[in-house]
């Protein structure tokens, strides 16, 4: 089971009301390489991965929910008290007519979240390579959002999240090394 802790993993700040940035950020909320997809992907793979690496998938999957909450906090703060006119000007008019300023699991283009984003092949190597790719894609997405953002406080949180993708990627690469065993045996031709 899980317990809730009344704190964010990292102190999230945003400098100003900016619904346009919130529209970009939602890619990491309900997008293909976002934090929700990551959390669900890893926690779901736990059931069939070899025992040696279940703990890692469990713990990274759990951390992803903490990241989901950070992204939600950023979106919430960037759009809090924004008027319908401001939302419309930021390209969020379509969002407003369906959701007001509620958060919703969709990507930056408004496409609803789908479990088709989450792979589970049942082959440990295939699944871990999938996870490494997911971390690299999430890292790249954070880079492109940082490129588009001019909010230094927001970027501080985004750089933190980008670095977490790097550490997760390394851990998944280590998990592959653990499962393949015989690391010292190279094949010579």
């Amino acid at each position, binding site marked *: 089971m899980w317990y809730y802790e009344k704190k964010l993993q*990292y102190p999230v700040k945003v400098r100003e009301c900016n619904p346009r940035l919130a529209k970009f950020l939602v890619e990491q909320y309900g997008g293909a390489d976002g934090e929700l997809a990551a959390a669900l992907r890893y926690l779901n793979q736990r059931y069939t991965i070899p025992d040696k690496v279940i703990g890692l998938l469990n713990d990274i999957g759990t951390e992803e929910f903490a990241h989901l909450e950070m992204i939600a906090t950023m979106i919430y703060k960037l759009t809090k008290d924004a008027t319908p006119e401001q939302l419309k000007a930021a390209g969020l008019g379509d969002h407003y007519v369906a959701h007001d300023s509620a958060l919703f699991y969709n990507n930056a283009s408004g496409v609803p979240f789908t479990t088709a984003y989450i792979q589970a092949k049942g082959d440990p190597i295939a699944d871990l390579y999938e996870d490494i790719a997911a971390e690299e894609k999430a*890292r790249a997405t*954070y*880079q492109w959002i*940082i*490129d588009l953002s001019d909010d230094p406080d927001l970027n*501080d949180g985004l*750089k*933190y*999240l*980008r*670095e*977490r993708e*790097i*550490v997760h*990627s*390394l851990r998944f*690469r*280590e998990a592959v*090394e653990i499962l393949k065993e015989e*690391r010292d045996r190279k094949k010579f031709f």
Partner: protein
Amino acid sequence: MFTQFKYWKPYISPFDPCEPIRIKSYSTPPQLYIQFQPPGLPQYPTAKQALHCGTLWPDLFSPYPNPEKKGN
């Protein structure tokens, strides 16, 4: 020691309407070179520094945007 950004020069046609980017770059962070973290790597001196860098180990830290700012 590896570098964290790589550069390349794309082909530029006289018929490309946008102002050409002559040098392109991409990020090559530390996890690509480490494979398996060795024990005992040096850590950031304080927990707060680790938190703000997003990792406990300076060897795993990757800057973004590119501090060298070559090309784009």
